[in-house]
């Protein structure tokens, strides 16, 4: 009688144990499948026709026209011509950085995946922040009255510093967010948000960063254009007065 009772008791425990294993496996399989499908949700849009991309292209065109006014032979401003030539060269190389390979490869796409967003973010870090903002234009954060006398750039030092702080911290959240998409544990809000349809949000976030960076370069190019045109106006004004 005792053996029978013990045997039945073992059987109950045993089936409960297998049931538990079955439910564990079901949970992990279902949550894996959900994660598998969720990170495959692409953002269907024509990249080249997106508003943020069009604005970005407009800004780049504006930078090109701002630089094109500069002619080293006719320039006679406060900032030395050699320095202005270097700045023009830096702005030109910034345009190349903005039109990086990753960005160019996206122009034909009609469907954006999470990996495209990741690649765009990486290109933002390497080409735009690294090459353009740090290598070419970081001197603008250290401008003082002695370097560029009485120019707008020297007076707007705080604003430029604000621009830099903003640009450097821009995509750090997105970076963490994208890396978290390899985990299907929904124990944190970040992990959860990174899994649920993150492609669209990530795309707008990274393109927003591209636009902020191009805005800053356009701001510098406007200053450059003003420097060139003010001097030209002075020269033409001076010539008219003489006449």
């Amino acid at each position: 009688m005792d053996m029978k009772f013990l045997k039945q008791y073992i059987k109950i425990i045993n089936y409960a144990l297998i049931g538990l294993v079955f439910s564990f496996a079901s949970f992990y399989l279902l949550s894996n499948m959900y994660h598998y499908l969720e990170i495959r949700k692409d953002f269907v849009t024509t990249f080249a026709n997106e508003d943020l991309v069009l604005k970005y292209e407009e800004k780049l065109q504006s930078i090109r026209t701002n630089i094109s006014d500069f002619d080293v032979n006719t320039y006679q401003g406060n900032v030395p011509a050699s320095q202005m030539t270097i700045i023009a060269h830096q702005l030109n190389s910034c345009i190349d950085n903005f039109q990086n390979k990753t960005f160019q490869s996206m122009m034909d796409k009609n469907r954006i995946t999470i990996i495209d967003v990741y690649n765009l973010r990486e290109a933002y870090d390497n080409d735009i922040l690294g090459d353009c903002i740090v290598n070419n234009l970081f001197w603008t954060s250290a401008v003082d009255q002695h370097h560029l006398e009485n120019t707008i750039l020297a007076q707007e030092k705080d604003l430029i510093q604000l621009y830099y702080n903003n640009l450097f911290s821009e995509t750090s959240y997105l970076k963490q967010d994208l890396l978290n998409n390899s985990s299907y544990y929904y124990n944190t809000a970040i992990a959860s948000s990174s899994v649920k349809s993150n492609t669209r949000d990530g795309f707008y976030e990274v393109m927003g960063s591209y636009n902020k960076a191009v805005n800053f370069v356009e701001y510098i190019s406007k200053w450059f254009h003003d420097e060139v045109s003010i001097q030209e106006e002075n020269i033409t004004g001076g010539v008219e007065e003489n006449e």
Partner: protein
Amino acid sequence: MNKIINLIFCYLKVLLLLICFVFSFFIIINMYRRLEKNVVDAVFNFIPYVVLFLLFSVNIVLKQKSVNENMFYNITCCFVFGMLLFTIYRTFFDRNMVALIRLGYNINFNYFADIIAPMRAMLYMLSVSNVLFMIDGINLKMKKKEVSVIEEVPKKEEKEAIVLTTNEIGI
């Protein structure tokens, strides 16, 4: 029909166990090498595989019906290994996970690390339930023997009775 399906699951679980073990071994060893950890420490992750493989071998060699003919157990084992194979597939081939590209090893260690603890827990639980089924089976066998002894007694008596009757007749 049920017996055939059960037999398929019974041998399939062993095959799936071996496949899961080979790939898990490859992933975990590479993970430890990448992290520059002592590879010997990785052994603890494979103990449940070895234990379960030994138990399956014992079940098949000793033809333990209590385990081999338990469909629920066999299906659960196949289900667990199927789930593990799905995670292994994703570890190697799911290119929509950013860590796979970022790590640059063509193996998503970040993702597989999440499944190691549940994998070990489930394999240990399957081992425990296997042992319990074996205990259950031993009890059953003892009972069957008792029943057969009781059944055999009247047969002997009958034989003796037949012999007696033939002696009495004088054949």
